C-alpha cells in the first residue's frame, strides 16, 4: 500500500488530510509504552526469536499498564510521536491483579476523547501482549506502523506550531 503511494506520487500523502504530504522516505515515530511483566517480556521474546518488525517504535518500560496516565499519550503526540502504542497483560493476567482493568477503562475514554478532538483513531492504539506472544508483538507493531504511515505525519496540536 505504502509503496504504491510512493511510486505513484513520489511522496506519502496523508489519508487523514490530503494537504499533508511527506517525503517518500518519511518514517513515523511511534511511542510504545509497555508493561514490564507481559508486553515488555513479550517484546524481548520477539527479539530472542529474531522476528523482524518495522523499526519505528520507541519503547518505554513501565511496571504496569495502569501506570500509564493519559497525559503520557497526549504529551507524546504533542511532542515527538506520530502515534502511540500501549500494551499490557491480557485481562486476568495482570501481574498486579487488577491494574489492566483500571487501565482499560481509562484507555477507552482517552482514545475516544482524542478522536473527538481530531486525532485519527489509529493514532493511539492498545494491545494485550503476553510474555509468550513474541510473534503477536511483531504483528501488532507492524499493523500500527502501517496504520500510522497511511495517516502521514501528525500535524495537529504539535508543540512547535500550536
Amino acid at each position, binding site marked *: 500500500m505504502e509503496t504504491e503511494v510512493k511510486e505513484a506520487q513520489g511522496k506519502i500523502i496523508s489519508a487523514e488530510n490530503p494537504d499533508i504530504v511527506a517525503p517518500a522516505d518519511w518514517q513515523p515515530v511511534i511511542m510504545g509504552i509497555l508493561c514490564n511483566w507481559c508486553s515488555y517480556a513479550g517484546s524481548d521474546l520477539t527479539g530472542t526469536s529474531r522476528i523482524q518488525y518495522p523499526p519505528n517504535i520507541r519503547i518505554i518500560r513501565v511496571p504496569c499498564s495502569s501506570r500509564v496516565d493519559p497525559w503520557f499519550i497526549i504529551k507524546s503526540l504533542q*511532542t*515527538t510521536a506520530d502515534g502511540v502504542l500501549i500494551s499490557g497483560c491480557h485481562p486476568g493476567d495482570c501481574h498486579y491483579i487488577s491494574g489492566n482493568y483500571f487501565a482499560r477503562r481509562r484507555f477507552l475514554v482517552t482514545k475516544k476523547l482524542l478522536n473527538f478532538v481530531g486525532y485519527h483513531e489509529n493514532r493511539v492504539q492498545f494491545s494485550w501482549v503476553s510474555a509468550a506472544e513474541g510473534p503477536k508483538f511483531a504483528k501488532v507493531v507492524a499493523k500500527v506502523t502501517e496504520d500510522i504511515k497511511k495517516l502521514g505525519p501528525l500535524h495537529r496540536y504539535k*508543540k*512547535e506550531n500550536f
Partner: protein
Amino acid sequence: MSVFIVETDKAGLQKFYEEIIGKFETYAPVEKFDKYDYKKVSNLSECNPDSPIETTMSLKPLFFPKTAKIMKFQEDSSGTTLSETDEDPLAGSRVILGVKHCDARGLQVLDQVYNWDYIDTDYQKRRINTVIVSTRCDKAGNQCFCTSLDYDVENSDAHDVRIVNGLDGKIYIQGVTEKGEKLIKSSSIQQPASDGAKDELSKHYKAFDASFRLKMNYTEVNAKLQKLFDSPEFETVSSNCISCNTCAFICPTCHCFKISDEKIKDTGVRYKSYDSCNNGYFTLMAGGHNPRPVKYRRWRQRSLHKFVYYKERFGMNLCVGCGHCAISCPVNISIFDVVNQVSKIMQ
C-alpha cells in the same frame, strides 16, 4: 493634542475603514464563541468597528501577548547556547479599529511599567508601529466607570484617531496624535470639520458622561485606601470570590507574568505568559513560605495595587474603569464595588 478633525458620514467612514484594511495589517473586534476580541481582519464585513463593542480581552494581548517566546536554547556537548527567538514582535505597521477608549488608556498605563527599569523592546516596537483608531462610546455600559478616575476621557491622547458619532448625525474623525493625523491625511476622507465640530464633540461627551451608572470620587477613594491596609472589610468583600483569575487575565492593565521553559529533545524555548495575583501560588516562594496564602490578602493586594501603589509609583491609576472584570467575573464581583465598599468604612 492635535485638533485635526475631518467630518464625514456613514458611507465615508466605511470607505475610511476599507482603505485602512486595504493598506495596513488591520485588527478589529471579531466575533468568536459569542464574544468579541481584537483579531486580524482582511475585510470590513468580518468585523464591526462602527460602534464600540465590549471585547472580552482588551487590547493588551496585541502588545503583551498571552504567551511570548523570549529566547531559545540549544544543548549539545559544548553546553547550552542561547539565541534570539525567530518570532518578530511586529513586522510592519498595523492599525487597530473599533477600539474602546478605556482599552487604549490601558496601554498608556502599561507603557509606564514597560518603560521603567527594564525597557521591553518587543512591547515598544509593537506600540510604535501601531495606530489605534478608537470609536467613542455613545453610552456607558453597566459596569463602566472610566469617567470617575484620574484621567480626562474627553481630552485623552491614549488613541491616535478618535471617531465620534456626533449627535448631529455627522461622523467626526479626529486625529489625536501625529500618527493619527498622518493616517487620516493618507486617506481619501479629507473634508475638514466645520467650526461647530468642537462644540458638537463636547456635547457628545456630556451626553456620554451623563449616562454613567457608576460614579466614584477617585481622590477620596485613593486617599482613604492608602490608610486601609489593615481593614477587615477586605475579607468581607472577597468572600464570594472563587479565585478564578479571570479578572487579571482580561484586565487591560494587569501585567504580571511568569517565565517557563519547555524543552523537546535538545532544544527549548523560554516563554513569558500571563499570571495573576489572585492565584494562590502567585507569591509562593521556593522555601515554601507564601505571604498571601488567603484570598482576602490577595484581594487587598489587587485593590491597593490598582488604586494606590501604582499611582504612587507611576502617577497613573492601574484601573482604567472599563468594567471588563465585573462583566467576566463568574460571580459578578466588581473592583468598583470592592474599593468603594472598603473605603466607605472610613466615614
